């Protein structure tokens, strides 16, 4: 008998006393952030900003027309930045650093030697201050948002959801997703939070209408 069959047989024996019919699952938890009324998008945006700021991320609200200036400002200290496929060229037009396209794919060593990355996102969750990347246009592979030390993420207001339950159903599970809730951190040493271990140490979020 294969181990597959062994394990499945053991499971069936172990659960023989349980009813096979599915039992209804209670679902009384909130589908939105507890502090924001459903439909209050201004409240949702304010909460996202509050949460991201708590994480130590820099958040700026920017008009579309000012985005290229805001990107240049966010990248002021960087000499090089990755631009994933699908990121509008215009966004980097005001910045004079080295723009690295990820095509052909940059090697890990090349990414490691790059200071920053600029991306869009697939969704954001206000309640937990989370940005979700799904590899879509302007987001690219996962590695480029990991090795450079500064991540600049452009978020559309319409992409911001109140809480996890509202967001997760709109995401495509078949794509590799990265859910980012503040910069890389550890508390493994005496429970003292240290920001920046392996991922980017700095996160800048540009929130556009």
């Amino acid at each position, binding site marked *: 008998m294969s181990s597959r069959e062994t394990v499945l047989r053991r499971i069936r*024996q*172990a659960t023989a006393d349980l009813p096979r019919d599915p039992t209804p699952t209670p679902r009384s938890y*909130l589908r939105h952030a*507890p502090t924001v009324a459903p439909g209050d998008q201004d409240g949702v945006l304010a909460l996202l900003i509050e949460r991201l700021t708590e994480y130590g991320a820099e958040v700026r609200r920017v008009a579309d027309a000012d985005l290229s200036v805001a990107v240049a400002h966010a990248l002021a200290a960087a000499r090089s930045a990755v631009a994933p496929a699908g990121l509008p060229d215009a966004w980097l037009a005001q910045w004079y650093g080295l723009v690295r396209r990820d095509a052909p794919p940059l090697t*890990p060593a090349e990414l490691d030697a790059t200071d920053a990355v600029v991306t869009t996102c697939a969704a954001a969750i206000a309640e937990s201050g989370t940005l979700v990347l799904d590899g879509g246009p302007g987001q690219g592979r996962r590695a480029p948002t*990991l090795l450079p030390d500064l991540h600049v993420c452009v978020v559309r207001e319409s992409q911001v959801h109140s809480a996890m339950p509202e967001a*997760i159903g709109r995401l495509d599970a078949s794509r590799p997703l990265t859910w980012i809730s503040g910069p890389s951190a550890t508390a493994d*040493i005496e429970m003292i939070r240290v920001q920046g271990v392996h991922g980017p140490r700095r996160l800048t979020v540009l929130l556009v209408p």
Partner: protein
Amino acid sequence: MSKTFMGWPTFPKAAETATADEQLRANVRRATHTIRTKRAALVEERPDWQDLRDTAAALKDDVLAHLDTYLEQIEEKVTAAGGTVHWAADADEANRIVTGLVRDTGESEIVKVKSMLTEEIGLDGALEAAGISARETDLAATIVQLGDDLPSHVVVPALHRNRSEIRDIFAREMGKHGRPAPEDLTDEPEELAEAARLHMREKFLKAKVAVSGANFMVAETGTLCIVESEGNGRMCLTLADTLISVVGIEKTVPTWQDLEVYLQLLARSATGERMAPYTSTWTGVTDGDGPRAFHLVLVDNGRTRALADPVGRQALRCIRCGACMNICPVYERTGGQTYGSVYPGPIGAILNPLLKGADDPQTASLPYASSLCGACNEVCPVKIRFTDVLLKLRHDVAEGDAKVKHRAEKVALKAVEGVMDRGPLWNAAVKAAGTAGRLLPKDMNLPGPLHGWTDSRALPDIPKESFRSWWKRTEGGTK
């Protein structure tokens, strides 16, 4: 060979050493109280916390009741998405599968994302025996591995270490395994984390094979999910060519949408955050992004044994948040290694006997490593009733199938009970105790097993007259 918990002393014996270690107790106390406080504040801000717990428990119960079909579904979806699924009935088989997969790549140094399951099955030792060096990448797991130590917590495995101990380990050991720690390394947490960042980055950039566990597996989609803080998980999941995820069969959740329940509970319970900094989800392999080969090893290793216990099976709901150990007054005084397993604290006290059977004295001592205070029941995000399971497991040891028996204790309790269920005999015994009590000095140290009481406590005064004698003499206090 990597250190293991083989031959570990029973809980009371190990606890005698641990409770006498002031440094250990201070480290554990500080850490558990910090997380406890943060957790409490974040739970407070969720008015629907109990609702989330109810759903989380119900979903896991559904998973356990239909685990066979859910696992078949996972296998189908992962395979369809370009992954390969392997089944391991026990630790040896899981280790053989992973070792074989790594050998096939020709690599001799691999990176790992912290996984309690790979600790449970002793994977590092098995790989080492096959000439493969597996380097941990999580900071706490690195501290444990470099210090040739054992984990003491499921979320923060090096919780028993303080900063100066960590500094010494880094300064002494990092150079033996790659980039050494800076000469002038101090014990500032920022500097220690930076040393780990530099030491590990070298390994991430050249690693071709990564081994991980998983926090969740979604049956509906075949998606795996890892929650972490540092980014070491993302490194392993993204940069390696081959990813091998070794996952316990109970990590299943039914649907993609159901993740919303656990992702809202896990970080709040584990670290007192709303979400951990990084959550990664992936399904099989993706062209042009991440590993080209993905292997999922589904591991039983006693889980079906636990599943067969009608009371104990709820322990398989566990999402390894560690909230039970952070709140546990016993864990706080002993630290995690005292439990002799990678699963310490209340969950360890129930999970180990359920997975292995209480057939050796160490495992059989675990259900008794609790005062039954019930604090763990209240914080568990999946509503495991620890005290119910502890009592059931004690029953297995006392009167059930477990091979370890406490014969002398049984004889003693039986003798007491034999008197207690007969009124006249009990009346006589109470009267005799009153007489004997007057002869016992208050500060005496009792011999045998009762010394556990008198080591730290005086005996109570034994009154001259029992309640029943008083009732009889005064006719119920009326005379």
